[in-house]
């Protein structure tokens, strides 16, 4: 798919956000094209999650604009942005602890957006659709796993639950906040192909990650942030070679051989 001829799906222009005296995001601009996987990386505290919150409307930015398919969505409340097809995952997950895992997806299936699409299920069907989606995401259908209370699920499954939530929402664009972090080798071995498959099926991704090896397997492009500013934008392989990026991660005056 030729990604350059289609206008960018999300455009972020000059976003700034400060909390008290701390500039979390400073004059950030970038574009997201349809069908690509954009990675956002950077040391801790570089403003990645704040950026995500600003784009999805959970936090109001001080200045700057966000455009979705050409439409100005700056200042829209989070539910309206989600309704347009921008789904997101949360770094700190708060599922319904006492309810079975598949009931958590039912909330997303109940949303106005999901209901507009056929196949989201009505009334009692939602449970069945939820279990289908969970199977899609990697929960074993015949095992007890989808029925376990969400509070009893290990981390890998919780992250997959978050992704399942976005899928249930029929989101075109998924903004993932560190879904690879904290997973064991076995869990990651199934997550990365999942993201690849979703991308091939047409979803666009923004992924905030710390696990660079796995991210670089799926990402087309990366942006590196440091202290709220964009210090690099380009191909993943070039990111680690860039001098400014190395200084951000390792400090000045250090020669590191990777």
């Amino acid at each position: 798919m030729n990604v350059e001829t289609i206008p960018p799906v999300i455009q972020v222009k000059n976003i700034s956000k400060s909390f008290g005296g701390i500039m979390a995001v400073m004059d950030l601009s970038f574009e997201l094209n349809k069908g690509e996987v954009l990675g956002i990386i950077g040391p801790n505290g570089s403003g990645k999650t704040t950026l995500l919150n600003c784009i999805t409307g959970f936090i109001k930015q001080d200045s700057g604009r966000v455009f979705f398919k050409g439409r100005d969505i700056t200042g829209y409340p989070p539910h309206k942005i989600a309704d347009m097809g921008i789904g997101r995952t949360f770094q700190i997950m708060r599922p319904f602890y006492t309810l079975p895992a598949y009931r958590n997806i039912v909330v997303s299936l109940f949303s106005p957006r999901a209901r507009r699409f056929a196949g989201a299920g009505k009334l009692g069907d939602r449970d069945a659709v939820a279990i289908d989606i969970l199977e899609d995401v990697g929960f074993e259908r015949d095992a007890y796993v989808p029925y376990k209370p969400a509070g009893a699920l290990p981390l890998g499954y919780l992250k997959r639950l978050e992704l399942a939530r976005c899928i249930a929402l029929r989101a075109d664009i998924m903004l993932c906040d560190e879904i690879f972090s904290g997973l064991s080798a076995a869990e990651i071995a199934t997550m990365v192909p999942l993201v690849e498959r979703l991308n091939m099926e047409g979803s666009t991704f923004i992924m905030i990650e710390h696990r660079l090896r796995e991210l670089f397997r799926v990402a087309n492009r990366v942006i590196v942030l440091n202290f709220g500013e964009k210090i690099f934008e380009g191909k993943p392989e070039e990111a680690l070679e860039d001098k400014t990026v190395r200084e951000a991660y390792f400090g000045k005056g250090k020669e590191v051989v990777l």
Partner: protein
Amino acid sequence: MAMTKRRERLDRGIRVRTEGFYALLSWREIGYLVAPRAALIIGLLILPLIMPNVYWQRVVCLMGLFALLALCFDFLAEFVGLICLGTALFVGVGGYLSAILNAWLGLPLLLTIPIATVGGAIFCTLLLLPCFPLRGIYFAIMTLIYPMMAARVIEALGILGSTNGISGLSGFPNIWVELYLIIGVGLVCLFGLRRLVGEDIGLVLRGVKDNDQAIKASGMNITHYKILATFIASGIGSFVGSYLAHLYQWAGLSLFALDFSILPISASIVGGLGTLAGPMLGAFMLTPLSELLRSLGGLRIAIYAIILVFFIFFRTEGLLNYAQRKYHQFQHWVEV
């Protein structure tokens, strides 16, 4: 000190046998499920018949009223996260609306009760509209202030009959209509609300209470659902107010009294929050108690307050939650 005994909790196996489809496997399982509910329904239906005199039948009416209000409170508090400290607001609005429709505009009882229910729901929801986008405590405070202020406004401005109230409302045809109307509505609301919170929309409402980020990220407007929940609850409350006005054939300032806010809350806490039936049972217990204590005047409220304090701080679980736990498990001491 050596421990020689420990507590052992054994599951009675009721839950696993009655969950879902397996309940249909034998009469015994069906019995486990149906027995508590049937006991409640049958008990309520025969209650008016065993009351010795009209006074006690009236008390049954009041029991039903407070049970409905307690239901409202529990629904809002445990399933939507809105703590309503002023169910008296709903009662007052419903009552006065009914009085205006009936005494001033001359509409018959069959019309005033439904209109007052819906109209009261709309009015109360509008009143509380500004505080929905805010944290839960704003709702709590506004529901507390509104009834008290409403009473003072009516008194100060001398409108709506001021301290005398509006009298001359038409009453119910006979005592049996009064009784079975309230019991019927009570049962319908109880089972209806239980069904509602089990449905998917109930899940969304529960999300409003403790998982609002998932709700927002799924494209649903939280304020919208709070409005829906408040509409339902204030509708039930307005029905209660309108019924009360026609029961006593009078609507006055006492409809906004603290009584109508405190007793539902006490009933809910005592009966067990979170199980919609618990508050109803709590109301059934506390209302006769309040009637018996009526001679003590203001001390009545002090006693509720003390009971409430005891339950809130020391036994937050409530009676029905405890009973449910015991229904599913039993415990005994065993030798270590």
